């Protein structure tokens, strides 16, 4: 278990970047990414193209694995345990059971205890996070709203998860039973949070990070590392932006450094306001 959970510990304070080609993976590694997420289309393109979105072609994932020395993650559809078996067989370092792809099961998530490869899952609130942990997730990330370049949903999710953790640490024993019911989460996990003051696994931020300031905001709110999806390779000039986001994630409390690295990066991805997206087209609604 420590082997599985430990890798997330090693990614703390780092930036995990979405890449669709070996060249992008190299740019990400050069910029200081602590891992890359290999996928065929970044969320912004998945959103634009529509249709069913699935696990990436193993050939493409292998190409990215061969191009870099840092850990390689890849996404599977919610509940699609066979896609996960394939990624484990490919030797991928981390599997993201991701709402960005089209769900394969509308009731069940993957039994992640059955795998040696560690899993990350998205969550919008603490109950969802604890359900994923009870299924064996080794890392939780906010869902945010992927492919929008809009940080507002990730902020909502982080504030909800971390705010409820803070409240639980103040609750008495009787209240913890009520918290477990309200969150629809296993009581022992809720009791453990009351004792330790934190989730059982690291909490990272994903969904909508487009600027160094966005990354630092997520970190100051309490995220322990950040995922950047469309935000880098949908911007005008990916390499300097990637480097700046890496520096901002390390020096997230140092406004002088944040001011320095935020200069002259060209245009970020355009982004989408939440009121421009129908509820049915929101990735964060997926997951149960």
């Amino acid at each position, binding site marked *: 278990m*420590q*082997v599985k*959970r*430990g*890798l997330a*510990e*090693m*990614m*703390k*304070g*780092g930036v995990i970047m979405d890449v669709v080609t070996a060249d992008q993976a190299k740019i990400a*590694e050069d*910029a*200081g*990414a*602590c*891992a890359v997420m290999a996928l065929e289309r970044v969320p912004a393109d998945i959103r634009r193209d529509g249709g069913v979105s699935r696990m990436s072609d193993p050939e493409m994932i292998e190409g990215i694995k061969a191009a870099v*020395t*840092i*850990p390689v993650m890849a996404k599977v559809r919610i509940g699609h345990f066979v896609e996960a078996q394939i990624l*484990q067989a490919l*030797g991928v*370092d*981390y599997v993201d059971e991701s709402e960005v792809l089209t769900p394969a099961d509308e009731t069940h998530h993957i039994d992640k205890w059955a795998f*040696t*490869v*560690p899993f990350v899952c998205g969550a919008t609130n603490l109950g969802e996070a604890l359900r994923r942990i009870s299924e064996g997730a080794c890392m939780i990330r906010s869902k945010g709203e992927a492919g929008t370049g809009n940080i507002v949903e990730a902020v909502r999710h982080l504030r909800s998860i971390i705010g409820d953790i803070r409240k639980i640490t103040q609750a008495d024993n009787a209240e913890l039973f009520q918290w477990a019911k309200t969150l629809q989460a296993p009581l022992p996990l809720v009791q453990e949070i009351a004792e330790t003051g934190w989730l059982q696994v690291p909490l990272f931020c994903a969904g909508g990070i487009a600027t160094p300031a966005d990354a630092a905001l997520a970190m100051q709110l309490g995220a*322990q590392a950040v995922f950047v999806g469309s935000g880098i390779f949908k911007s005008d000039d990916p390499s300097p932006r990637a*480097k700046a986001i*890496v*520096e901002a*994630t*390390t*020096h997230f409390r*140092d406004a002088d450094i944040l001011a320095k690295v935020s200069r002259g990066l060209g245009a970020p991805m355009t982004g989408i306001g939440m009121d421009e997206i129908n509820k049915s087209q929101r990735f964060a609604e997926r997951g149960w």
Partner: protein
Amino acid sequence: MPAPVIGVLALQGAFAAHEDALRGLGVATRQVRTPADLAQVDALVMPGGESTTMSRLLRTSHMYQPLADRLGSGMPVFGTCAGMILLATEVIDGRPDQRSFGVIDLTVRRNGYGRQVDSFETDIEVRGLATPFHAVFIRAPKVMATGAAVEVLAVHDDVPVLAQQAHVMVASFHPEITPDARLHRMFLEHNGLSTEKERA
């Protein structure tokens, strides 16, 4: 003499876990991200994480030279996993632009034990500890050669996994993610950095 402050290099990686382990021993800690932070500490722990990321951030944070100077003048340092890579004299399978400090005479192969699916945990015998230590190896570097001045403190399958040379101690595994702080204590004691609990 004021109580020593143990720095934890906090550019990226498992720095928080090291801080917890050190605080559990009753020593004062400080996260180190800038040359100003470094000037405030008496010793340094370099955590696991991505050595390529840390190597880049050492440069962009103007930390490389100040840290090389402190290491050269004998500041005690404990490097785990990526930290070991950054302290070794020679790194195989690193990135060409990756720089190490070369303060312990070791040749290490980055990801020498394989990818995450090859990661493992096992009990090892450590010289100076009465009972085995549970060691967690995660995409760990593998020691390929050791110089004459290096004292090997533990091996796994005949390969050194814990070693020291003067004020430099390194582990290819992760003592910070298990609750056992005996190796952190060993590092402090070896370098005469007594803990609060011992002084009391």
